[in-house]
């Protein structure tokens, strides 16, 4: 009983204390509240000031005639805001080009690119959330999940066709980590068999045949693949299935269907390959270069070819244009290429409305893509791990961009 009483009492005392302290706290809070209110008032004032600034700033110089301030490189440099979304494969390229474009134009336009992935980009494009999309594959013309992408995009462009404009060429490197092997030659068929687990050791006769004289270890091959769904996986498997003489039987897909250990994103695959002996992976060129991984040479029938900007451009040059007119949907040639062509690559398309986008957006899209497809911008791409468009295609792309209305 006493214990309970004591407890009750100490509770009461505690409550009293709390009450007193809360009163003190209240007083303190009130003082703070006044301070806060003053701060808030200040903030709104300054915000209001800020708010009025940019509009007046844009109205004055950019204003009435957006085309008036053409600069030295022939760009119109209109003012405004553009948002785009899609392929993460071209992210490094487009980020750099946006920065260069802004430098040329003195930051008049705001261009945002969100690397959410090709599928997401196309979806946002046909739902009118973004002004153009980047995608590792052209708009699909057959139905998938109840949606025909090309038709949906057409709808968005007010019944004008959407064009696939190839802009960034991303080579796929086959990076390996084998001690004592500085030069490794592989072909699509051997690669397919390594990646599906048919070839298990480095000294397999099929690899040895392509690399006479190389000291290949008897160790098991560790294959690393992308555990996330990715356009790189899709394009690699497309290459393997088209050029592999039937060695790769699965449908090309964003999710890996071969053997191996999955790692997260390109960075994870690169890290794993760099730190695991006797491993091999497929990866974007830029990551292979950044991690100084050894890259296999590809033999597509006319001798081994090293991965360089030129050898990739040569392979893109052999591609046929599938689309009609200015819709430059490419049919890449994966096997039986000319000597000196490296056919393992992916092309990122910018998907734009041929007509029907709001006029102010169209001028920026056109101007930005004009810069993107210019030789100036394209020649800077190899430094970032991409290949430039071959000159013939480059002029076709430029013509297509010019035809956007």
């Amino acid at each position: 009983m006493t214990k309970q009483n004591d407890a009750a009492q100490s509770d009461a005392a505690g409550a009293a204390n709390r009450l007193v302290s809360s009163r003190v706290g209240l007083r303190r809070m009130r003082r703070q509240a006044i301070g806060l209110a003053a701060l808030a008032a200040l903030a709104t004032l300054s915000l209001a000031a800020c708010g009025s600034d940019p509009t007046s700033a844009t109205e004055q110089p950019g204003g009435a005639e957006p085309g008036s301030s053409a600069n030295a490189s022939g760009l119109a440099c209109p003012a405004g805001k553009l948002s785009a979304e899609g392929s993460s494969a071209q992210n490094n390229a487009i980020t750099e080009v946006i920065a260069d474009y802004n430098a040329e134009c003195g930051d008049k336009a705001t261009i945002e690119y969100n690397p959410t992935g090709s599928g997401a980009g196309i979806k946002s494009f046909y739902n009118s959330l973004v002004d153009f999309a980047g995608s590792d594959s052209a708009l699909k013309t057959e139905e998938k999940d109840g949606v025909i992408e090309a038709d949906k995009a057409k709808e968005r462009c007010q019944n004008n066709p959407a064009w696939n404009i190839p802009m960034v060429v991303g080579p796929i490197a086959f990076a390996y980590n084998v001690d004592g092997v500085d030069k490794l030659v592989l072909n699509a068929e051997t690669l397919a068999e390594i990646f599906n687990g048919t070839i298990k050791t480095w000294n397999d006769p099929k690899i040895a045949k392509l690399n006479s004289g190389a000291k290949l270890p008897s160790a098991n091959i560790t294959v690393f693949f992308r555990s996330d769904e990715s356009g790189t996986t899709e394009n690699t498997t497309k290459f393997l299935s088209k050029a592999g003489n039937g060695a790769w039987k699965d449908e090309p897909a964003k999710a890996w269907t071969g053997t191996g250990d999955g790692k997260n994103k390109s960075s994870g695959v690169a890290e794993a390959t760099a730190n695991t002996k006797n491993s091999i992976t497929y990866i974007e060129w830029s990551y292979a270069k950044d991690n100084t991984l050894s890259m296999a040479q590809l033999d597509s029938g006319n001798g081994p070819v090293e991965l360089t900007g030129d050898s990739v451009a040569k392979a893109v040059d052999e591609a046929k244009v599938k689309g009609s007119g200015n819709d430059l949907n490419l049919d890449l040639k994966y096997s039986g290429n000319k000597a000196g062509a490296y056919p393992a690559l992916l092309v990122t398309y910018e998907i734009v409305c041929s007509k029907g986008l709001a006029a102010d957006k169209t001028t920026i899209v056109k101007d930005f893509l004009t810069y993107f497809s210019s030789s100036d911008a394209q020649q800077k791409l190899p430094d970032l791990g991409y290949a430039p468009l071959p000159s013939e295609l480059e002029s076709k792309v430029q013509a297509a961009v010019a035809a956007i209305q």
Partner: protein
Amino acid sequence: MAVTDTNATERVEPEPAAAQDPSVSPVVDHGPVALHSPVPKVTRHAPAPSIDGQVNRAPRGVKLAKISKTGDRVFRALASTSGLTIILLVLFVGIFLLALALPSLRADQDNFLTSRNWTVAGNELRFGIAGLLWTTVLSSILAMAMAVPVAVGVALCLTQYLHMRAAAPISFVVDMLAAVPSIIFGLWGLIVLGPFLAPAGEWLINAIGWIPLFSKSVDPKGSVFVASVVLAIMILPIVMAISRDVFAQTPRDHIEAALALGATRWEVIRTAVLPYGRSGVISASMLGLGRALGETIAVMIILTTPAAGSPFSPSIFAGGETFASKIANNAAEFDSPSKTGAYIAAGLVLFLITFVVNAMARVIAERGAAKS
């Protein structure tokens, strides 16, 4: 009753003195005890604090301010709105998950609970969560098994062994662990801890590899084991902080009683501190478990994903994917509603598991509270 009476009579003795000087008197025992007091009530009330006296002495004509209930009403409304919002929020999350997941679940050709396939692109959906569930639960429980003993040890050390001046900086440091972003833990696990733990893993595989749980698997650096160690470090601060606060509240009486009976420090902890804090430690562990179950980025970076169709390995040295890591890994390519639905269905299962874990924590904590 007899005890109370003697108490009361004993305490009467100082009363007369106190009655003469109210300011000296401490506010001891009003209430029921006073009823038993043989001393007249008036003298019992006289020693009340001086404020009371002043109020009593206040002139009759003074009007007291009206008692305003606006504050009460406003606060009550605010508080109940907050409560309602939370419930609605959880409800809506559940409904959202269910609505998005249902079409895919209907189209699923495999058994959703037992299949290990994950084919969600194309026209035929074949997916199940068995593999995800195993990796998620295994890594979280392993993490808990490692983190909870250490956390309890740290908490006991801070509250029972160390002086306040030494304990404060240490608990500050452990609390700091909670502020490290999980991506940092992930990268550290991948680059530093993975290679560092690889030899230990190989030693274990050689020693007890015949047990399926410890059998050899492909990549020692990206195993569930490494992920669990990182998870353990991540949940350590939560479990430690709550355990510390619970242990610190062990009634002084209990500890002193144990000491008086001749208990050593360890015996005090065993007989007084641990029983008192048990339910708190359990609910802390459950909170930690909840965090481990839902941890995304660190696990995603560390774990090696086995190729589709590879045989199932229950080993802690195998790779795998957890619910959260699988969803995060592929979130960039949710390009069709059926694919999105499949991942959301996995998310729904995680949501339900977390629900169950939290409910368990609640039940255990309440049962513990009732006992003490």
